[in-house]
């Protein structure tokens, strides 16, 4: 039994505190070095941004770039359970691994393409629901009202509950006899649904669970974005005769774009890589409910096909990368990355509003 005593509290605070201090120390050394080298020695004009970015850059290089390189190297090997201690490396293995990803079953029977298509379907459904429902809730909450704090706290419950626990709880609710969904269905006279053994309904179950889990987060993000939109825009638009839908389209959407677009892109990426929900709700290991990352996990950790799994991971990564690049090409770099410095000017607002806007609250003239 490891119970909590004052001694342990102090010791653990010390351990964590020393880690934070060490990180801080490292950062200070780093910044000093950059300042001296880039600032004083080279008189570089971008010294300050480099100083600002350096800690993050180094951390990411170590914790992300090294593993990626490791995985790439692994995909060139034949490492599996039998070749665990001495895997062999070479182009021929890379050929085989990458080839196998597309030609051989990625699990026992199912091939790459159905799993890929299902992942696309899953992501599309999820992101659509998350953004739509999140936006609706954010719009509803974006006004002074009684009980707003209470609503907000309650609506965040799905996010606050640890994800694994929530997923296991939902899994219990999909149980045929005792889950509340089927109990309710039977109470209103319908038959219970076989959530776990039917391929179709299991997929629906996975989607329901993840919608419940994901909407609060999107709601919080969008609410924050909505609240940073200045009221005068809406007033100006109303004075110009814009109705509610036009106000939403021409004021809200463009102004919330810098927040919404990244949220959508990240939503797509995270949903595609979402492991917990499809893995656990698919209690019966139906191959029809597997998406790319769950298949990857099984290949790596259930079958120990490490070389193959590394190639599989790289393929998934490249697919997402291609998606991101195409999306950026299509909608322009700025809608994703955001313009630096300036706020985008909303379209469709009349001249009076623009003129009004050009004087700040204290009367100073603005650009």
């Amino acid at each position, binding site marked *: 039994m490891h119970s909590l005593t004052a001694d342990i509290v102090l010791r653990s605070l010390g351990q964590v505190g020393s880690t934070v201090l060490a990180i801080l120390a490292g950062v200070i050394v780093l910044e000093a070095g950059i300042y001296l080298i880039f600032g004083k020695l080279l008189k570089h004009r971008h010294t300050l*941004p480099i100083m600002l970015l350096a800690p993050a850059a180094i951390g990411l290089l170590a914790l992300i770039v090294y593993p990626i390189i490791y995985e790439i190297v692994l995909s060139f090997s034949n490492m599996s359970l039998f070749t665990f201690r001495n895997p062999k490396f070479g182009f021929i293995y890379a050929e085989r691994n990458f080839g196998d990803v597309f030609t051989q079953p990625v699990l026992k029977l199912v091939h790459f393409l159905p799993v890929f298509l299902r992942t696309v379907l899953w992501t599309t459904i999820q992101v659509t629901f998350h953004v739509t429902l999140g936006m609706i809730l954010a719009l509803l909450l974006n006004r002074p009202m009684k009980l707003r704090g209470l609503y907000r706290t309650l609506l965040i419950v799905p996010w606050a509950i640890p994800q694994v626990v929530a997923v296991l709880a939902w899994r219990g609710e999909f149980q045929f006899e005792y889950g509340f969904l089927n109990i309710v269905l039977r109470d209103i006279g319908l038959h219970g649904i076989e959530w776990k053994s039917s391929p179709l309904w299991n997929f629906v179950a996975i989607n329901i669970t993840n919608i419940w889990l994901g909407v609060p987060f999107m709601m919080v993000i969008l609410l924050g974005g909505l609240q940073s939109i200045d009221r005068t825009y809406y007033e100006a638009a109303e004075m110009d005769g814009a109705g509610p839908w036009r106000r939403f389209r021409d004021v809200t959407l463009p102004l919330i774009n810098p927040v919404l677009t990244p949220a959508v892109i990240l939503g797509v990426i995270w949903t595609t890589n979402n492991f917990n929900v499809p893995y656990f709700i698919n209690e019966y290991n139906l191959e029809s409910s597997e998406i790319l990352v769950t298949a990857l996990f099984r290949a790596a950790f259930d079958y120990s096909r490490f070389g193959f799994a590394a190639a599989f991971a790289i393929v998934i990564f490249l697919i997402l990368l291609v998606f991101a690049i195409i999306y950026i090409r299509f909608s322009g770099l700025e809608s994703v990355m955001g313009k630096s410095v300036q706020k985008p000017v909303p379209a469709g607002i009349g001249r009076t509003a623009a003129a009004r806007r050009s004087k700040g609250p204290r009367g100073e003239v603005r650009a």
Partner: protein
Amino acid sequence: MNTTRSKSPRALGVMRRFFARSRGDSPFQRTLIHIALIIACVIAVYPALRILTVSLRPLNILMSTSLAIVPQGATLKNFATVVANTDFVRWIWNSLIITMSTAIVGVIIASTSAYAFSRWSFPGRTGALVFLLATQMIPAAMLMIPLYILSARLGIINSWRGLVIAYSVQAVPFSIWILKGYYDTVPYELEQAAMIDGASRMGAFYRIILPLSTPALAIVFLFNFMQAWNDFLLARIMLQKSELLTWPLGLQTMQGQFQTQWGNFSAAALMISIPVMILFFFSSRWLVSGLTLGSVKG
């Protein structure tokens, strides 16, 4: 292609209905809004209440066809068992200090880096932003083994050091993204005005930008916290001593090979959610306050 337009017609209709006359809401409008929110709250909260129901059941019996929230023979014994007979308090404490420190470090790193992305254009900026996006695309399970080997070589496994460092960095890309988006909505003139008044670049950042970005900082802090709080895979592979366990690993010890004590498990799950709910409740204030400072207009 602007994805913000590609919503289903049904959703648009709903939005139209509820957005109408929102600024000066009629009582009827208000009632509808309240009803909609109440329904949403019920949907959000009910499954969590079911966990409560299981935790109150005696003798670890999971199943019953009753929908009552408080079950027959409800008992708090499961909660008592978890607190007294397991290392539960220790797990929560471990998780709490790791998570708080990583959240603080993470916010500091991200807020400064995002500022650089927002206010400067330098060679490699686009590439770096794409790289940040790309880091989110890596399936997490594939990072496990190389991170473990790297940590073993650096000697930072079997203590919290490796975990704190890994967690701090893990949430940085997303945090930078969100913060940069918020910084972008703050006009540069504000810092210019401050610098004309004699502040340094970083002084303007500290005194003008940060206070305005409290909603974003709060979100980033919460996000960092949640990432570290909920992480299971990384903690499992890095922590090899039972006194170091965080709550996800601890909770797992309650799952047997075949059986799980659902009563205890659910009781523990609820108690774990409490620190997070408290955190959310308190930080919701910051999520609002940044707007009333007055200088955001324009």
